[in-house]
């Protein structure tokens, strides 16, 4: 129950943990600054690794910097993305979360809509076929 308790305590809502997808999801109901290193440490204390970290938040992008609204917490932008001068929700891939001085973010497509579970399996090949 450690990870569920960790996420509930940090983010204030009931998390979802999906064994098949090896994923956890949680709504962050109230504004707060993120400490991704502490989140990583909390998860690994449960003998589980953290393989990816994606955040949907209301952000502004300008001058190579992504600023989360309304907390003002900001991260360097990795990769290309057009400026966003009015707060707008975006999905972000968090990079280098174990090193806060190096943590950067990348603007990505929604991971919930590109889930591998929605991809059909390839058809089986005929025995003796080409």
């Amino acid at each position: 129950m450690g990870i569920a308790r960790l996420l509930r305590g940090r983010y204030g809502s009931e998390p979802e943990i999906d064994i098949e997808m090896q994923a956890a999801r949680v709504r962050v109901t109230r504004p707060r600054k993120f400490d991704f290193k502490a989140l990583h440490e909390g998860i690994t204390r449960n003998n589980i690794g953290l393989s990816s970290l994606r955040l949907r938040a209301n952000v502004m992008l300008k001058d190579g910097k992504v600023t989360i609204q309304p907390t003002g917490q900001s991260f360097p932008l990795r990769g290309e993305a057009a400026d966003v001068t009015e707060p707008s929700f975006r999905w972000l891939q968090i990079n280098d979360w174990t090193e806060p001085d190096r943590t950067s973010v990348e603007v990505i497509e929604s991971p919930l809509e590109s889930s591998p579970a929605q991809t059909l399996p390839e058809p089986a090949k005929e025995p003796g076929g080409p």
Partner: protein
Amino acid sequence: MKSAVTALGIGILVVACVAPGETIQPQQTDFAFLDIGLSG
């Protein structure tokens, strides 16, 4: 051994936290939403 313990831990968490077919989604009223990839 560590992998087995990890798998068991995740399995228990799933039973405890997720109803069948349930998927939480971001809400417009939320501050943010986190999607976390886990590994054994």
